[in-house]
């Protein structure tokens, strides 16, 4: 199963998902094994923005730097390749990504993936509050005829904690970064999502929804911790 996942990840990377079977058969596109220790050496240039602890930083008045610690290695790896190839345009990241060869990309990806676990959030079903627009969009979507926006969690998983290597976690990511990415999909500067699944959704979100949902996910781990704290005390009694 792991082999299949890795192979399909590489297939997506090369934009060859539809012919991954033939690629596998002919032995092409073997994934590189990332080494976290080597990755630490190569990540020297990353810490200025992404910080030594890989937590990045939200900069309300400028470009926000995403948290990398705990993102799936395959996801980070794909993003770096996409930045190099221009499928994800980033003036800030481009020069740094270009400094890394394929092996170094695999290594830094392994390094950040292993640095810390992404927050594990509750997976149990919770009905969305119809009075809370952000919670509603995250859990139920906006299916008006001119919107047709699935719930974010339908792909990004319960409480937006990510699904597999393709759908990254949203909860606990910086608001400024999330907002910038949604904008990047809208203006086409980021176009590296599988089958334009995200681009279409981003285009149909309005500005208010983007700001609202970015803030919702950035603060969700804290909000959930507060919500669940009293009840867990009760459970203990």
């Amino acid at each position, binding site marked *: 199963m792991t082999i*299949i996942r890795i192979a*399909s990840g590489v297939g*997506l990377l090369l934009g060859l*998902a*539809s012919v*991954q*079977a033939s690629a596998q058969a002919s032995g092409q596109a073997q994934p590189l094994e990332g080494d976290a220790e080597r990755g630490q050496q190569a990540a020297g240039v990353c810490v200025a923005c992404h910080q030594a602890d890989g937590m990045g930083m939200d900069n309300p008045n400028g470009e926000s730097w995403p948290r990398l610690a705990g993102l799936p290695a395959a996801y980070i790896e794909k993003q770096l390749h996409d930045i190099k190839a221009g499928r994800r345009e980033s003036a800030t990241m481009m020069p740094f990504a270009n400094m890394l060869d394929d092996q170094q990309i695999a290594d830094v990806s392994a390094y950040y993936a292993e640095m810390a676990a992404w927050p594990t959030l509750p*997976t*149990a*079903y919770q*009905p969305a509050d*119809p*009075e809370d627009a952000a919670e509603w969009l995250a859990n*139920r*979507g906006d*299916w008006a*005829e001119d919107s*047709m*926006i*699935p719930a974010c969690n*339908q*792909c990004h*998983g*319960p409480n937006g*904690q*990510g*699904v*597999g290597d*393709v759908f990254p976690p949203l909860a606990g990511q910086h608001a400024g970064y999330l907002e910038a990415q949604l904008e990047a999909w809208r203006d086409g500067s980021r176009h590296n999502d*599988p*089958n*334009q*699944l995200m681009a*279409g*959704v981003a285009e149909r979100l309005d500005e208010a929804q983007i700001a609202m949902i970015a803030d919702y996910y950035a603060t969700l781990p804290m909000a959930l911790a507060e919500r669940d704290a009293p009840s867990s005390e009760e459970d203990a009694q």
Partner: protein
Amino acid sequence: MSLRTSRPLMAATLVATLALSPAALAQDEGVERDYQIPLPEAPEGEVTFQAPHERDLPDNQYGDMVRKGRDLFVNTQSLRGEYVYNEQNCANCHLDAGRLANSAPMWASFGVYPAYRGKNDKVNTLSERIQGCFTYSMNGTPPPTGSEPLVAMQTYLHWMSTGAPINESLPGRGYPKLEATEQGADRARGAEVYAAQCAVCHGDEGQGQTVGERQVFPPLWGDGAYNWGAGMHRVNTAANFIKANMPLGKPYSLTDQQAWDVAAFINGHERPQDPRRRTLETLEETDATFHNHHGFYGDEIDGRRLGDHADFGESPRPLDG
């Protein structure tokens, strides 16, 4: 070959095992029965019906029952091991919690029941219709009539249908019907569509994806999927659903041909046995009686005959149970 003569043995066993009403028995033996007739198509035209918003739900016992039904509809897995024996939720095939037009919305179903259904050759109440979903789409056992899960779901549907006309087929009901294409539906072409468009969510082996215990992307074949008796196993039904609703967030993005092909690919895989197989002696009989439609049950694919097994998935009832 769509007309079949029913057998007394079969009818009696059906009543016993599938909780059908004795009305089916009361009908004359030997009468020609058609188990394939679908409900009439929805009329064309603009979708005008608007389901009410949940923020307007009343804070009383009725509102609470609606919320319970909503929860069961979205998270049907809460009934796993009791009435549900696969990994599906109602909202997987009825998007936006059963509210979305052309995604078989509940507000368009509520008013058309009771209705005659060829599937079991009798007039079905809404309650029986929902029970049918549990038997087939959820590969489970139907909640008893009057039980809270069933009352809750009916109440949810009732509330969602506030203001909808009774006994009138509304635009947006069911899945829009795709016309057949000249090339037909081809599994091999469908495999390519699947790999390119579907596998990213539903997995290379149709296994779906979960986070912890929570199903995120439903399995499309195998034990976690809808069984061989579910409407979705029909290639035409799946093609209709896919065209209007998949990939999620990209409705109508596949060509008609792609929708047909990928539906054939998905439904050309093995899944839990048709529960009606318990009522008949052989696969051949089950195929001939209940599968005169566009599906692969009983067909040989890649050297194996689909449905030729006693695997009812997690369903606790054995073949002769």
